[in-house]
């Protein structure tokens, strides 16, 4: 088994407005996979399908080498899930909820649960309905981690949490991963957080997976370059041009945002007659925005 999650050709139609189209995704074992995409792009739906909560119209799903939905209980025993909306019973106290959860998972780490409770500052006697969003988020993570899962699926785990809690949550995840080599699928639209910790990134937009590659390649591969004397239609460029902006005033200088850039591609400029003036690195957030912009149909008021 070399994939923690493997989706092939996943498709699903909700209604005329939204559908998942041909999602093929792979989370390598032991990696931290960042699942990026704007709200409504289908991340949560895809995650729910991986966990057998929704049925796709077509496609195959394999999690931890087992088939969904056939081996679902076996899979769920090894997956720690932190959903978007909290799934804990509001009328229970923290301690009662932990005990309830623990009864379903055989390798439950009581010591780790206690340690996490202290580290995350959770009061076991506190009623869940009285807890803040941040505290509930921490509790969800405690429950997921104490199961000692082989795969952590975190759906916007830090959404709406203050920076202090976010750090607590992320360091707890990082500690666990460091100890156990567990795989992590973390979906978020907070790009800066993911930049630090993810080895892989998958980008979803409007129901399709528009990019999946190692984080480093993604970051390095998206550049903003200044070009003069470019041909009108650069047909044989070795990189993908995501956008072209013709600067006003200087007729010949354009700013291109390109994807898949490698340093060796400078050579192309010599042969094509265009001149490469400058290369600017884009951070993950900028690259992500450019990628999304380019994958959407052009709006009327853009050149």
């Amino acid at each position, binding site marked *: 088994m070399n994939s923690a999650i493997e989706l092939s050709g996943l498709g699903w139609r909700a209604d005329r407005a939204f559908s998942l189209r041909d999602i093929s995704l792979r989370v390598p074992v032991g990696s931290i996979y960042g699942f990026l995409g704007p709200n409504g792009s289908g991340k949560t739906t895809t995650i729910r399908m991986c*966990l*057998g*909560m929704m049925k796709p119209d077509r496609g195959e799903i394999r999690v931890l080498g087992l088939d969904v939905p056939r081996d*679902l*209980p*076996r*899979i*769920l*025993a090894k997956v720690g*899930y932190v*959903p978007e*909306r909290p*799934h*804990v*019973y*509001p*009328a*229970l106290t923290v301690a*009662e909820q932990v*005990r*309830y959860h623990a*009864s*379903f*998972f055989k390798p439950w780490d009581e010591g780790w649960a206690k340690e996490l409770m202290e580290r995350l500052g959770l009061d076991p006697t506190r009623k869940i309905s009285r807890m803040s969003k941040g505290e509930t988020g921490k509790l969800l993570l405690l429950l997921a981690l104490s199961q000692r899962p082989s795969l952590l699926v975190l759906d916007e785990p830090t959404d709406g949490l203050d920076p202090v809690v976010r750090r607590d949550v992320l360091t707890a995840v990082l500690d666990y991963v460091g100890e156990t080599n567990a795989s992590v699928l973390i979906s978020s639209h907070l790009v800066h957080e993911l930049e630090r910790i993810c080895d892989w990134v998958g980008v979803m937009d409007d129901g399709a997976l528009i990019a999946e590659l190692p984080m480093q390649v993604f970051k390095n591969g998206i550049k903003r370059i200044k070009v003069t004397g470019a041909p009108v239609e650069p047909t044989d460029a070795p990189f993908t041009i995501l956008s072209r902006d013709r600067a006003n005033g200087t007729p010949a200088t354009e700013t291109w945002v390109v994807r898949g850039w490698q340093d060796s591609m400078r050579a192309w400029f010599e042969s094509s007659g265009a001149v490469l003036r400058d290369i600017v690195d884009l951070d993950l957030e900028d690259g992500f925005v450019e990628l999304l912009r380019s994958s959407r149909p052009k709006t009327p008021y853009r050149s």
Partner: protein
Amino acid sequence: MYQPMLFLHWKQIRAALLPLVVAAFALPLLSVQGLGSLGSFPAEPIGAYQFMMNSGWWAPVFPTLAAVIGVTLALSSWNWDHQLNHVYALSLPVPRWRYAALKMGAGVVLAFVPALAFWGGAHLAAASVALPPGLHAYPNALAVRFLFSVLVSYAVLFAMAAGTVRTTLVLVTALFVFMLVGGSANEFLGRHFEYFQRVNVVEAFFQTLVSRNGPFEVFSGSWLLIDV
């Protein structure tokens, strides 16, 4: 797994359980109010008559309470899961049938609580009156019937409570429509087909439910605490 499930159900039903237990205990006692010494005068035939009238009056109250307890158990089984859209339950590593079975098991255990209260009340009621000759009290039989009625109504409504509110509404509406329209439809069909002149489908349906082999048989039997 089972114990925390039981704890969870108990927490969900906690608020409603106390009044139900009190009612279960009190109802048999209330049913023999004022009958205290009527049986002490064996020569008075009116005493026995009054006992029977009283028993008959109270008889429908007990199965109603049993049904109410059954409904409460069923709704409280699934209430919290509904609030969470079942997401939590679906993420647990238990096959769905097993999860449902554990839940039902928890409810069955909780059903014994008001049933025991009823049993206690029935015995106390029977002991507190002097019975005229020819009449006997059947607290045990009544209590057993009560327990089974609770369990039957719980089991039947359990499945409905697990489904969405929409499925429940659909089922209940279908039942109502069947009851309202069935009679006239039966009459109409009776003009053309001899079978429907003999058989009223609606009546037959309900009759089967409470008959000897139907699921609701236990409700239609004798609910008299005091009988000949």
